[in-house]
């Protein structure tokens, strides 16, 4: 039980493999517009069943990287390989959880969770059962028929999570999913997420701007550096699972990794500021 993440990491093909990913954005619509280099040659291999967190200063390209992994946008250069196959469109193997929840305000909780299934034309009875099962899994069975605006932020994101789980995708792509949720609820949801992902052997890519969260959840933490977006470092977190906020915080490994990441982040911010001044 102790070292599940290590066994997971050593099995077969990678869940996601990125090679030489570059992406530039054009800022305005004019011909002589400014170009922004958002990602500059990212190589990365994510193991099956791995929990990878991504952290970095804001604007360093985290969201862009995740959207490329989801095939919501295509890279200018480089390849995205999911479970051994090159991909260029969203598919059933990957499901996304959004920072602003992305719930349809005109659909009830149940209809929101059912949505990806009816899009895939599952039989109606089956979709309902699957959806209800995942709504239960995130503890919202009493709120099936509520509309999103009647729920708190934490509950809304549980719906977002249930929706992603209901697709049966092996890979969850999460962009600061708990960023807009209060601290206590967030700790609870972190634990639930870890439990669910471990039970169901999910591969998770999880963006956060919270150092504690990054270390607490991760098998590996990917630190991105700012301008233009590159991988600065990938660091393994050798903490036993299951983890709870309470035991982990005092653990020596947690303190070591967190301290290391903080120094690196800080250096990056300082470098950037001196560059701006020059």
């Amino acid at each position, binding site marked *: 039980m102790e070292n599940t993440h290590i066994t997971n990491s050593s099995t077969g093909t990678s869940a996601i493999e990125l090679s030489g990913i570059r992406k530039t954005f054009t800022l305005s619509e004019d011909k002589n517009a400014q170009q922004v280099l958002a990602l500059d040659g990212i190589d990365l291999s994510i193991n099956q069943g791995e929990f990878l967190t991504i952290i970095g200063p804001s604007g360093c390209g985290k969201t862009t990287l995740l959207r490329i992994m*989801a095939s*919501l946008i295509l890279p200018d250069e480089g390849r995205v390989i999911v479970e051994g196959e090159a991909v260029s*469109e*969203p*598919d*059933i193997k990957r*499901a*996304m959880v*959004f920072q*602003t929840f*992305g719930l*349809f*305000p*005109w*659909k009830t909780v149940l209809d929101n969770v059912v*949505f*990806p299934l009816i*899009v*895939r034309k599952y039989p109606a009875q089956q979709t309902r059962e699957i959806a209800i099962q995942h709504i239960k899994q995130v503890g919202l069975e009493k709120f099936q028929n509520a*509309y*999103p*605006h*009647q729920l708190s932020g934490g509950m809304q994101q549980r719906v977002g999570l249930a929706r992603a789980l209901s*697709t049966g995708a092996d890979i969850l792509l999460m962009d600061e999913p708990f960023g807009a949720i209060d601290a206590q609820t967030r700790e609870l949801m972190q634990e639930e997420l870890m439990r669910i992902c471990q039970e169901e052997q999910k591969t998770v890519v999880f963006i956060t701007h919270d150092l504690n969260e990054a270390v607490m959840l991760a098998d590996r933490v990917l630190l991105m550096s700012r301008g233009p977006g590159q991988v600065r470092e990938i660091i393994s977190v050798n903490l036993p699972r299951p983890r709870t906020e309470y035991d982990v915080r005092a653990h020596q490994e947690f303190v070591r990794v967190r301290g290391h990441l903080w120094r690196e982040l800080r250096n990056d911010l300082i470098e950037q500021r001196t560059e701006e001044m020059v």
Partner: protein
Amino acid sequence: MNLLATFKSRRVYLPILSLLVVLGGWELVGRSINPLLFAPPSSIIAMFGELIASGELLAAAKITMQALFLGYILAVIAGIPMGVLMGAWPRFGDILQPYLYAIFSTPRVVVVPLIIVWFGIGFEARLFLVFFWTAIAISVNTAQGVRNARPDLLEVARSFKVGRYQMARHVLIPGAVPFVISGLRIGAERAIVGVIIGEMFLQIVGLGGIITTASSQLLPAKMLCAVAVIAVLGTIIVTTLDMLEARFQVWRNDSN
């Protein structure tokens, strides 16, 4: 259903009190100065009874509503598909928008001379006054709704790989409904004004016609009867659309 408690609520007794004061004052002042010209409430009520008894008011209201509803329904039938086209095909919408905006901003009373030379002064002319401006209101709002789909929800839908039809069915159309309904509402206000303009300036019939005739007969009490019916009609139509709006938007506002 405690009647006494209802009357203790000030949202009930204050308007009634104020109405009594205003109507009473009007009655006294109107009577003492010039009862014919200042039409005190008692004379309006008497006039109302007369107009109902003779059937004149009901016949006029029927004529008004015929043009109003036919024009409005035609505007809905034409306006919504037009708006969807303009929204789904932004280039077309952008090119059309300036004309619609210009026509919409032009007071209709000054367009009356043009309508007379184009459509005459009969039913078609009145229908056009209702139809055209209402259709513009509905189509412009619908187009806005289709174009203003929330980008984050479009992305959610794309991440689940939805097709064109499902995108329209689950994301674009439900998102546009509030805009369409607000178009229906603005359109209804426009339609009511349009039908009255037509009846006062083109073909002197209906409720607007009563106002014009009464004005030349110097009978303010008769005018006020027609105005009151128009106001009540307008309130009923707008309130109905408000209720429709509320029903389609359970997901928007708390229903308390």
